């Protein structure tokens, strides 16, 4: 059975994939369906949802279209989540491979640096970094990656430690391959599967961290974010709870979708590896 069909037979995976597809569709269609600035005033303030069909989810305190904000916010969440996870995975895999393969002093130094990053709570690290450098999309991505690359680094190192003793690594040395080429061409690709298995959790965590940073007012101020929308709605939580609930639901569904789809992919590839 092909991996795709096995993936489609897992109900959780399909649900996750559908949620994720919806999110991606929202992000891609945002500027088509809602051209112009989503932060522009579109109608009367605090219009509740399902009253005016030109503003189906109502408006916030300043009269901005909540649905438009939701669509544009999907872009930020997805972009930050994926970029931060990718950065964390790449940095983690490279650091872990170098530490595990080189051993000795290089391993000691790299792993003590990893320890240092891991002892600081990752959210605190992100918070401190954004406060110092200033909020912008790139900075938020780096700030989140800063706290999450240590996990992949440890997994990659453990995997590399077992792979570097294999015959094919000795074989690569015998034919005169450069140690860096051995590390990145022979060892790293074979150490990747367990590292990639962490990606769904990392993407989900990154999306949540981004929302939390935005909630605290440390997101990119020029972009609509779901975290920022929740923070906006907090002031009128009693009179207009929908302003916090709508982006909150979007956030929950997104994290759930990423997690379920990721688990589904890991599950199907794990079965394939087990069979072969």
């Amino acid at each position, binding site marked *: 059975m092909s991996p795709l069909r096995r993936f489609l037979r897992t109900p959780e995976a399909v649900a996750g994939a559908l949620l994720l597809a919806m999110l991606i569709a929202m992000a891609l269609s945002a500027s088509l369906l809602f051209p112009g600035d989503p932060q522009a005033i579109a109608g009367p303030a605090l219009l509740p949802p399902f009253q005016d069909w030109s503003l189906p989810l109502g408006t916030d305190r300043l009269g901005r279209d909540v649905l438009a904000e939701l669509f544009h916010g999907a872009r930020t969440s997805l972009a930050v989540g994926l970029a931060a996870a990718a950065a964390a995975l790449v940095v983690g895999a490279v650091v872990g491979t170098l530490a595990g393969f080189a051993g000795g002093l290089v391993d000691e130094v790299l792993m003590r640096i990893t320890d240092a990053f891991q002892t600081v709570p990752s959210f605190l690290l992100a918070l401190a970094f954004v406060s110092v450098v200033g909020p912008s999309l790139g900075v938020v991505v780096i700030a989140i990656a800063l706290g999450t690359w240590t996990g992949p680094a440890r997994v990659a190192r453990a995997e590399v430690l077992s792979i570097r003793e*294999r*015959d*094919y690594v*000795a*074989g*690569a*040395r*015998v*034919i*005169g*391959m*450069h140690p860096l080429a051995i590390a990145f061409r*022979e060892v790293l*690709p*074979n150490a990747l599967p367990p590292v990639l298995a962490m990606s769904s959790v990392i993407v989900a965590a990154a999306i949540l961290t981004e929302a939390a940073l935005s909630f605290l007012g440390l997101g990119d101020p020029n972009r609509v974010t779901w975290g920022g929308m929740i923070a906006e709605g907090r002031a009128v939580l009693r009179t207009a709870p929908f302003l916090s609930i709508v982006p909150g639901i979007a956030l929950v569904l997104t994290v759930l979708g990423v997690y379920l789809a990721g688990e589904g992919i890991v599950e199907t590839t794990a079965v394939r590896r087990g069979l072969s």
Partner: protein
Amino acid sequence: MNLLAVSNLTKRYRRGGKTIAAVDDVSFHIDPGETLALAGPSGSGKSTIARLVLRLIEPDDGRIEFESDDFLALSGAALRARRARLQMVFQDPLAAFNPRATVARVLDDPLRIHGIASRAERPRRIAALLERVGLTANLAPRAIHEISGGQRQRVAIARAIVTKPSLIVLDEAVSALDVSVRGEILELLLDLQRQEKIAYLFISHDLGVIRSVAHRVILLDAGRIAENGDAQTVIGAPQSAIGKALVAAAPRLNRAGP
């Protein structure tokens, strides 16, 4: 002139506070085009010697002279360049290759690393190499795990001869193969030796195979040389206790013996 001269080679390991000598004061030499066999029970240091000679691990003591140079003094790029002359074939032909590799990539690597052939020329060289070891050129795009064990060991031999080495270390290179394939691979190795004057350091626990391919044999016991001499003589009439035990453990040989 010796091709390889090893003197007083020693490698110690520490296990739980105790020091164990895996290889203890071993000296031997190999002449060009000669096959020297290393035999001995498990844990006698055969594979450790192979890895020391290839500089995959470093000795605690001793000298290795290869092609009249101090092989242990080489490092970095000089060592990598010299590795072209000293190759290895591993026991398990599946573990010896990157699980993601194709046959073509396995042979392309040494051609590229040692600048033997230009990018355009390499596919032709790879096809010629595959034919040299008795395979067909259409095997090149196949993945390593898609071909049989015997074919894999032929690819391993092809990889070892890409750089035209003067010495190949065969670490139990035919032990994992079934009997009929083993005969073909041994025949290929002897043919290569006749044509290219390659010397072999042939590591095996199978005295029958050693007697059919080796010129000289060294019997090892607990990291030391127990017996050393002409392969036919030593296996025919072993003098050391370990030699007698090894020959007695091979019933076929016992009956065939004088």
